């Protein structure tokens, strides 16, 4: 027909087109490594475990599944290395699904319900207490969507240990409990722990003189001026410090904050009753003294806190015990209610400077939990002021402005309560703190190199070594409170079989990932609790676990 009559050139193009279509599809199939011999042999203890599990679950190799990740360069590479390793055994045929953050979270939280056939690569940010690393993830009460137990893993012994760890207040006993818990978790492997994150701070040595690296990300900027922790920073020139933030600040109100960036930005603005300093020690902040005052009637725990005098909010109010009580109780009915109501029962205002707080049960992490509750002014509690329009606290800096997606600015609060000490001057040396919001990772590095910012905590891992060898820059590294992990879908075969999970755990190319993806930044992880909490997860303990459960004997 006329319309479809094609000249030689076009005909060739059409042919090419359809050939390429086939080539493309087949090529992709080929590249995905789906061509494998059918008989699979297990050579090695890890593969043997997997084979055992496959047989028990009645699954034929190769088992097709996918690794679900978010779109992040490093996460991407992580998944590729993992896939390569698992596919090579012949037991698996793995593809990678990369999604935007929203879809990824959706997928994880609906996974068990949908019987989703996927392994999830995720990272978890813990805190200063060991319970932060296990409670939400592995307790059977915390199955999604109520908690973060994505694989719907449930084990009685694990539950018992977790509960015991929360209610035990004696340190040594807690260490014992959590060690047992970790061993149990590694033996069962509902998730494989891959790497403990590291806080890497890079600063311009010409401008910033000396900097302490706070291990937990929300506290990145404490180093600017944290008298309660005995830390402060001075500038060689100028009075403005320019740091960065990896994404826009979303919430200003503590009861709404659910992202690390918002916590980082507001860290210098709010204060709490106590604080955990750079070494993990509890320090008094707004409370000067406290003691446990249980009596026969107390079910759980009861503490009396003496509050600091002469503390002022940015809006002029004076801190009283009523502020503390109200700040605690405003969490009720909010998305972050569990931060408080997991342990809080009631509190009693004794006088302006004294308050007694009761917990509904014995609660090990009590003091570090207090570190998460920011004290806010009465104007907020009365509903006169909305923290979402302007954050107001008692911190050494006050809010100036937030240009969405551009920058966040704070200035020194001259009425701050601190009166000076040997270690820390009364007045913060830095007058203005500006945090530039830069989402593009390479731009953060570029901005630092070009001198547009003085400090960055998000330089790509591969560049950290370059900065370390450059005398003009200072680099601070500290093991952080988070880990990267691979979560197995324990709700479906073959991952419902412990041996399969154990086998995968052994195969995980941790060293390679650490070396090639993160360029040595971070530490190998075999258990969930970060070595930041030395007592609970020391290096020797990690080694012992690794030798027993992960390294083939």
């Amino acid at each position, binding site marked *: *027909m*006329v*319309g479809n*009559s*094609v*000249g*030689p*050139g076009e005909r*060739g193009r059409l042919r*090419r*087109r359809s*050939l*390429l*279509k*086939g*080539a*493309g*599809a*087949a*090529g*992709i*199939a*080929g*590249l*995905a*490594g*789906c*061509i494998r011999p*059918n008989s699979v042999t297990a050579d090695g203890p890890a593969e043997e475990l997997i084979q055992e599990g496959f047989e028990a679950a009645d699954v034929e190799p190769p088992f097709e599944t996918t690794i679900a*990740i978010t*779109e*992040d*360069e490093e996460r*991407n*590479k992580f*998944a*590729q*290395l993992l*896939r*390569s390793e698992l596919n090579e055994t012949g037991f698996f045929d793995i*593809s*990678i*699904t*990369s*999604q*935007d953050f*929203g*879809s990824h979270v959706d997928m994880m939280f609906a996974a068990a319900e949908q019987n989703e056939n996927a392994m999830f690569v995720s990272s978890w940010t813990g805190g200063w207490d060991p319970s932060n690393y296990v409670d939400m993830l592995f307790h059977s009460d915390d199955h999604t969507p109520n908690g973060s137990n994505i694989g719907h893993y449930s084990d009685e012994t694990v539950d018992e240990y977790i509960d015991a760890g929360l209610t035990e207040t004696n340190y040594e006993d807690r260490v014992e409990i959590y060690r047992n818990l970790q061993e149990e978790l590694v033996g069962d492997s509902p998730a494989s722990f891959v790497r403990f994150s590291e806080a890497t701070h890079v600063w311009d040595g010409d401008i910033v003189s000396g900097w302490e690296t706070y291990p937990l990300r929300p506290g990145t900027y404490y180093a600017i001026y944290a008298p309660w922790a005995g830390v402060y920073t001075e500038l060689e020139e100028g009075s403005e410090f320019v740091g960065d933030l990896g994404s826009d600040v979303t919430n200003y109100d503590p009861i709404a904050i659910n992202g690390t960036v918002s916590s980082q930005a507001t860290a210098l603005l709010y204060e709490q009753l106590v604080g955990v300093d750079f070494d993990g020690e509890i320090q008094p902040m707004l409370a000067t003294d406290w003691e446990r005052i249980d009596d026969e009637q107390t079910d759980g725990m009861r503490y009396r806190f003496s509050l600091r005098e002469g503390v002022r909010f940015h809006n002029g109010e004076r801190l009283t015990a009523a502020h503390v009580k109200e700040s605690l109780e405003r969490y009720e009915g909010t998305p972050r209610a569990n931060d408080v109501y997991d342990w809080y029962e009631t509190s009693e205002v004794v006088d302006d400077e004294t308050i007694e707080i009761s917990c509904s049960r014995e609660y090990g992490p009590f003091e570090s939990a207090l570190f998460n509750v920011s004290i806010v002014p009465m104007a907020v509690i009365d509903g006169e002021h909305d923290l979402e329009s302007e954050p107001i606290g008692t911190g050494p800096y006050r809010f100036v402005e937030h240009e969405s997606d551009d920058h966040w600015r704070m200035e020194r609060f001259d009425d701050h309560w601190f009166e000076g000490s040997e270690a820390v001057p009364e007045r913060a040396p830095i007058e203005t703190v500006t945090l530039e919001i830069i989402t593009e*990772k*390479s*731009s953060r*590095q*570029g901005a630092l*190199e070009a001198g547009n910012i003085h400090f960055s905590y998000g330089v*790509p891992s*591969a*560049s950290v070594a*370059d900065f370390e060898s450059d005398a003009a820059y200072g680099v601070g590294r500290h093991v952080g409170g988070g880990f990267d992990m691979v979560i197995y879908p324990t709700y479906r075969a073959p991952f419902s079989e412990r041996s399969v999970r154990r086998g995968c755990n052994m195969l995980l190319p941790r060293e390679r990932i650490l070396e*090639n*993806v993160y360029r040595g930044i971070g530490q190998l992880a075999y258990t969930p609790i970060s070595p930041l909490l030395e007592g609970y997860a020391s290096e020797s303990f990690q080694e012992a676990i690794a030798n027993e459960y992960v390294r083939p004997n």
Partner: protein
Amino acid sequence: MSDRHPTTQRGRIRIVGFDDAVADQQAGDRENDDDDDTIATGPIDSSTTPGETTTETESEPDRPRRRLEDAWRRFRRNRTAMAGLGVIVVMAVLAVFARPIEVSTAEVTITLQPFSLAPYDPSAMFVGPANAPPSRAHPFGTDWAGRDQLSRVLVGGRYTLGIGLVAVALALCVGVPLGAIAGYFGGWIDEAIMRLVDVLYAFPFLVLAIAIVPILEPIPVLGGGFWTVVLALAVTGWIGYARLLRGEVLSVREREYVTAARALGVPDRTVIRRHVVPNAVAPVVVQATLNVGTVVLTAAALGFLGLGLEPGSAEWGAMLSQGRSSLVQGRWHITVFPGLAIFLFVLAINLVGDGINDALDPHRDVSDERRRLR
């Protein structure tokens, strides 16, 4: 002028008219400047009563084929266009022969294409030191996982060409029929389709794609991201063709041969298929060719934003995206080669599109010939 061939077959009516290309050839030969008032009628093959098939006589099929042959000849004379075509052919060949193509079922693995131009398996890691600059062993260097860049660029061509051609083909399959129907029938069908086009036109290409990708993601059929990207691009691409074709159809349908065909009672769909669309389709073909380039760039942008293909794929845009922090680290080789590859491809396709434009547009061509004869 017109050829007449007597025939003894019954019941066939032949309508002949002037062939644009023929007229121009003659006009060109006579160095007639004033070609603006050439009667533009299209070539008609044997217009038949419904149900009869076309039968061949010697010179009849010549006319339509001659038009395209003339176009091809014009195209061939255009050096830059041929250069572009050459580049694309080379890229296609390289893409096909880069690595073996195998199709496997549970029992059998069929090798469609056994050759392997690429020295290494593009997904094989650590075949060389990581992030190594270009060397003899690895002419394009290696990436963060020690994968050979040359192999990846070669194989990456499959994705790029595949996405470009498939997305445009799909968009054409939707846009051309809709545009033809809108232009031919007019009335409320035209209005409805054009309003839909206007509504979609209000959304920028990339924004639509960004919005569509998360919607398509959960659908299990679309594996690997390839089809998600292609569909997103096709859905956003068809509107241009529809609009363009409609415009052309509006003018073509007024021509005499269409009126004549309809007077003969040829069914609408045949008229559209045989007479209207072939004569209206030229600018759409040009646009489609040029759009292959745009589609490739948009796919690369989607990859840059992280909404593209499966991680680790050797698609050029994804390679650029993965390597972007390497630029600030001074490792230029990781982004330069895929970037150049995209650049070359889009450049070539634009040259080809220009060439097609010049070849199919007879008016322009006359002046070109005149110029060359000068």
